[in-house]
């Protein structure tokens, strides 16, 4: 009886310990947040840093309210979000598809190997001007930027993981007389879901880079346009506002991918 109580007591102690640790972590996270923005505000207010370049949280906040009320932020944001999400999805899907084609044909993968290496090494944003001339300064070329930046690395990473699937899983399927497409569907693809998800996480960041650079170049609308416009008229409050909005939405996209990960990967470990 007393032993039982002791264990309960110890368990409670352990739980309170966990709770306390969590509280501590949250506290410091909040502290960093508040310290950062308040010191930014104070430093800017007292001109310790150049308020023209670094602006201040209060000015950014005021601008945010203005931009929300006049509706322009929503317009720019929706364009950028649409481009990024589409670029991200197209990039990841076509990368995975390419990887599947390479897996399907070993000869093709050998033939294409050096070209993949070159394409991967090349900075894709440098293709921006060509894309814009070829596809026109439109939504399409920006989406293409968002996609092209992630497609090659996705292909390489996913193809590598396709090749690394334990051949014994394929042997099991082959003894059942499975065709190559059945092998792909039953073993290769599901075995690589974790890798595909982790490339998704990388691609969230990459697509934002592609889209923002695309908007820099096209300069007609979107958050990238807001940045380049703010830079040209020396309105750094606008630049920083755009940056913060990008940070928030990129984080949201990342969280969504993590949610997808939990849905897709089920092996009883949860």
């Amino acid at each position, binding site marked *: 009886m007393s032993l039982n109580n002791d264990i309960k007591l110890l368990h409670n102690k352990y739980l309170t310990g966990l709770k306390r640790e969590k509280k501590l972590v949250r506290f410091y996270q909040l502290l960093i947040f508040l310290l950062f923005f308040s010191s930014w505000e104070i430093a800017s207010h007292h001109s310790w840093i150049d308020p023209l370049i670094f602006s201040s949280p209060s000015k950014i906040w005021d601008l945010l309210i203005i931009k929300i009320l006049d509706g322009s932020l929503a317009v720019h944001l929706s364009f950028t979000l649409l481009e990024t999400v589409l670029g991200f999805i197209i990039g990841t899907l076509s990368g995975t598809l390419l990887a599947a084609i390479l897996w399907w044909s070993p000869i093709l993968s050998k033939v294409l190997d050096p070209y993949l290496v070159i394409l991967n090494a090349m900075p894709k944003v440098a293709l921006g001007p060509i894309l814009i001339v070829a596809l026109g300064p439109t939504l399409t070329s920006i989406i293409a930027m968002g996609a092209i930046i992630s497609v090659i690395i996705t292909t390489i990473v996913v193809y590598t993981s396709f090749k690394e699937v334990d051949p014994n*899983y394929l042997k*099991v399927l082959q003894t*059942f007389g499975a065709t190559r497409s059945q092998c792909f569907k*039953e073993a290769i693809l599901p075995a690589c879901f974790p890798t595909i998800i982790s490339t998704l996480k990388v691609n969230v960041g990459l697509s934002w880079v592609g889209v923002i650079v695309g908007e820099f170049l096209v300069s007609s609308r979107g958050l990238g346009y807001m940045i380049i416009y703010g830079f040209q008229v020396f309105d750094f409050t606008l630049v920083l506002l755009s940056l913060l909005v990008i940070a928030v939405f990129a984080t949201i996209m990342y969280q969504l991918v993590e949610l997808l990960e939990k849905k897709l990967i*089920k*092996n009883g470990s949860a």
Partner: protein
Amino acid sequence: MDFLTLKGICHTYFTKSSFTTALTDISLDVREGEFISFLGPSGCGKTTLLSIIAGLLKPTEGSVLLENKPVESKKNDIGYMLQQDYLFPWKTIEENILLGLKVNGRLTADSKAKTLHLLEKMSLGKVETSYPKQLSGGMRQRVALVRTLATEPKLLMLDEPFSALDYQTKLKLEDLVSSTLKSFKKTAILVTHDIGEAVAMSDRVFLLSPRPGKLHKTFFIPEEIRSMSPFNARSHPMFNELFQSIWKELESLEPE
């Protein structure tokens, strides 16, 4: 008429810098319902031989006839059990055992019920919705056996299926596999490096010598041992005698 015939099987692996002959001149016949074992030290091409019989690998020379027809993996005549269970971790147990039927389009309500019944018979009635990770090694290998038997293969290949298990589980599984195969009257080929296992389970034991692998000697297991379960066979006096003579043969194969 023999059930399975191997005629002059030779196999050579080629690499850039060299070639290795894994098997030379293997010829043997297996009767329907017979349980045979390939025993030998590592590097004697046991797994290569199984892959060839299963039709997964084309031999450099020779032919394999199952009921007088060349084997094809497409026809599901052959079931294959590997050293580890290789259950698909992202599939539930039910999805795993029905995989073979699904792959060759024979998944019906009837075949499904049959397979689930087989799972129950292996005393694994309540795990259909679990994932392989949640099962113990012995349970997983039993699930793998159900998966292999689900497609009703004529010939069963067992590629050291018990080698990754602890001793107690291994002995229990040997009994289970042996009695299951007997009740279904399946022909089976076991590859192992465990002399006791080969003697306790089989009707005939083929001893292979290494580099290149060839048939060295055949041991016929007497009826007294064959009629016993593998576990009981181990305590039969003749078991030890056979064990010793195979042991000596194996010793003589070891290079000095």
